[in-house]
């Protein structure tokens, strides 16, 4: 059972721990810096991505639990050839080959192996614990990569990376806006998969085009890795065949709009969402902050609200701000309003850990 939660916010990095009975914030670091992603690796090394307003994106690394930090290498895009034409397909603006955000960090199968997803769409790989990074050129140079477009951000980005627990050569990624891609040979070759995903916000001929979809977040069941869930821009989708086919789930309450999703590590039919009203109303419906849960693969949903504010709460929960621990019992989520909640019973009851954090960008049990 996890007793530590890592929290990245608009203004720093926090460690929340449970001692005896209560969860509390025990450590604050990198204060003033926006923290867009974090990871504790197999050696208990902390990797934290910051997005400095003036000086760009950096990685910070700590081997002593966040007390001291070093500056390892940061993923770097290659020199853009003068003749290169790389335009955002919607805006028709030039895509900068420049690291704009670190949006996902995951451990690979091997010791010291890390994967890093970024804006404007580069996937990076490290085999030395983050001392150096290599752009995955097979994906970056894939001709269909140029179909990816920015969504809420100005540039496309890789927000979800899933290394298959049963076959480490199988790696899946989620892209906003670019659908779900998979490699079955450790990253040498990539293809887009996503039959069944539906986009409401494109011309009719593109509605079912898997390469332009906007999955806000993709998660994979650890014990049944062919079972994946997506919180998409306009709905919830589920796959039971490793992402080749997706089924839209239309029973979610109070809405199917949101950013975050979590799946139980051993029960692939059980998933959680934190809904907002809809695309142009990004806050909790009726001012009541709730979590929705399905235990039957999306046939039905429960609305969980015990311990959550039910009056004038307008929190939004970003895509990396909901997490579940390895037991499947503990869940945590943080909001744009700086609220942080933890449940120890799969969402039936929630306790507020803080109401005064900066806007929360990511949470992760460690």
């Amino acid at each position, binding site marked *: 059972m996890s007793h530590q939660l890592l929290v990245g916010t608009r203004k720093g990095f926090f460690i929340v721990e449970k001692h005896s009975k209560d969860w509390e914030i025990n450590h604050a670091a990198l204060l003033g810096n926006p923290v867009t992603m974090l990871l504790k690796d197999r050696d208990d090394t902390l990797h934290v991505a910051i997005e*400095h*307003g*003036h*000086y*760009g994106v*950096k990685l910070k690394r700590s081997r002593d639990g966040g007390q001291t930090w070093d*500056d390892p290498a*940061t993923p*770097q*895009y*290659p*020199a*853009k050839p003068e003749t290169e034409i790389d335009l955002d397909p919607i805006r028709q603006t030039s895509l*900068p*080959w*420049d*690291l704009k955000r670190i949006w996902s960090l995951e451990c690979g199968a091997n010791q010291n192996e890390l994967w890093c997803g970024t804006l404007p769409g580069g996937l990076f790989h490290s085999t030395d614990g983050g001392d150096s990074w290599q752009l995955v050129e097979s994906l970056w140079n894939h001709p269909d990569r140029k179909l990816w477009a920015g969504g809420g951000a100005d540039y496309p980005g890789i927000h979800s990376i899933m290394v298959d627990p049963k076959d480490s050569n199988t790696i899946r990624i989620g892209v906003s806006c670019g659908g779900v891609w998979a490699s079955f040979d450790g990253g040498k070759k990539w293809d887009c998969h996503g039959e069944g995903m539906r986009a409401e916000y494109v011309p009719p001929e593109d509605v079912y085009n898997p390469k332009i979809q906007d999955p806000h977040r993709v998660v994979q069941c650890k014990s049944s890795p062919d079972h994946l869930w997506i919180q998409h821009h306009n709905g919830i989708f589920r796959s039971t065949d490793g992402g080749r086919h997706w089924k839209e789930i239309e029973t979610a309450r109070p809405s199917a709009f949101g950013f975050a999703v979590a799946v139980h590590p051993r029960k692939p039919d059980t998933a959680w969402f934190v809904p907002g009203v809809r695309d142009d109303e990004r806050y909790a419906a009726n001012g009541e902050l709730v979590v929705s849960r399905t235990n039957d693969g999306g046939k039905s949903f429960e609305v969980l609200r015990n311990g959550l504010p039910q009056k004038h709460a307008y929190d939004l929960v970003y895509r990396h701000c909901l997490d579940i621990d390895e037991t499947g019992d503990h869940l945590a989520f943080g909001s744009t309003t700086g609220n942080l909640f933890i449940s120890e019973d799969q969402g039936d009851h929630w306790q507020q850990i803080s109401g005064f954090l900066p806007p929360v960008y990511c949470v992760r049990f460690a």
Partner: protein
Amino acid sequence: MAHLSFTANLSRQTACPEADIPATTIAQLFNQYFSQWPEVRHYVLDDQGEVRKHVRVIVDGLNIQDRRKLSDKLRPKSEVFVFQALSGG
């Protein structure tokens, strides 16, 4: 020798001591400085080697003109100052 110094705001992020460097352009100045202080490069320049959007480089009181190729000329005793723009905070 041109004199290069940085805002204290940047020294909070990474070590960037001031230095006197023989150089006739900003590009030469930065290349020599970054060879000694490689961590500073990506705080000042982006992945394509251009001055970051929210960083200012001032030579003898004036903003540099060529933020892309850093071709602005230096005088023998130029004062070069790197600091954060008001934007980007």
